[in-house]
């Protein structure tokens, strides 16, 4: 039985924000509206991260996705001539993406419901609630530890560099 308590209500608010925002993104014809709905959806996701005791991820979500990527998306929309407020459907393949989205939903649903997570194939996971600051500091240590994630850490840097170079090459004429 579900007990109605405060965390559940807060979860419901964030879940509605996340899903409602996502529906707004696919439903709105105006691209800027779509971008703003995306921000609502991402904000809901950030709230869910906080509830999962991962506030660092929540802050990163707001910082990177809402603060940077959303603005980049709006810039990108304004690069496209007249696309910001087109009234007719440009793409006729919406049914294809609908099928794909449903298949993806089914896969995720099966993964959540089926007993594949916990030890011995049970569905029960013992979650440890970690103290957060310790978590972030440990993340910092693990990122530059030679036995742990130092290689992915440096590759991330190279990847960002490559992304920037690629974008400049594509965006500029010379």
């Amino acid at each position, binding site marked *: 039985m579900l007990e109605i308590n405060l965390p559940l209500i807060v979860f419901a608010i964030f879940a509605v924000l996340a899903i409602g925002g996502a529906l707004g993104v696919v439903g709105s014809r105006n691209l800027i509206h779509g971008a703003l709905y995306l921000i609502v959806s991402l904000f809901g996701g950030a709230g869910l991260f906080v509830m999962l005791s991962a506030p660092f991820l929540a802050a990163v979500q707001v*910082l*990177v996705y809402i603060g*940077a990527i959303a603005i*980049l998306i709006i*810039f990108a929309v304004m690069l496209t001539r007249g696309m910001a*407020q087109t009234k007719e459907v440009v793409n006729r393949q919406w049914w294809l993406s609908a099928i794909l989205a449903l298949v993806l939903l089914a896969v995720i649903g099966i993964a959540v419901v089926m007993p594949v997570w916990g030890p011995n194939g049970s569905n029960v996971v013992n979650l440890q609630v970690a103290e957060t600051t310790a978590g972030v500091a440990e993340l*910092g*240590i693990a990122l*530059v530890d030679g036995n742990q994630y130092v290689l992915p850490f440096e590759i991330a840097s190279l990847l960002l560099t490559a992304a920037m170079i690629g974008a400049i090459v594509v*965006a500029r004429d010379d």
Partner: protein
Amino acid sequence: MATLNQWAFIGMFIAVAWLLPVAPLVISWIFRPRRANAIKLQTYECGVETVGDTWVQFKVQYYIYGLIFLVFDIEVVFLFPWALAFNQLSLFGLAAGLLFVFFLSDALLYAWRKNALEWA
């Protein structure tokens, strides 16, 4: 539990704080006059009539700035845990962090040499 309490405070803060800017708007909505007409509602361009659409194509430089910003933003997200754990890091950890910064300075240098940082 302590951290969740912290965020409960932030949640309450958001729930209360938005009332502060809304309150003067509501008071103003009660008292202000409403005598709009078509001329008043026109787009303001110093008296000249608006020509064409507002939402036109913008130049690519805005996007490039946004993109360089994004790259540095993500870099900083990686560097904050590193700075937080700095006292506990070995010399190897320091070197790894500096190498990370070095790769990104490369990217900035590339953008500079390609004149991607120019406004015009």
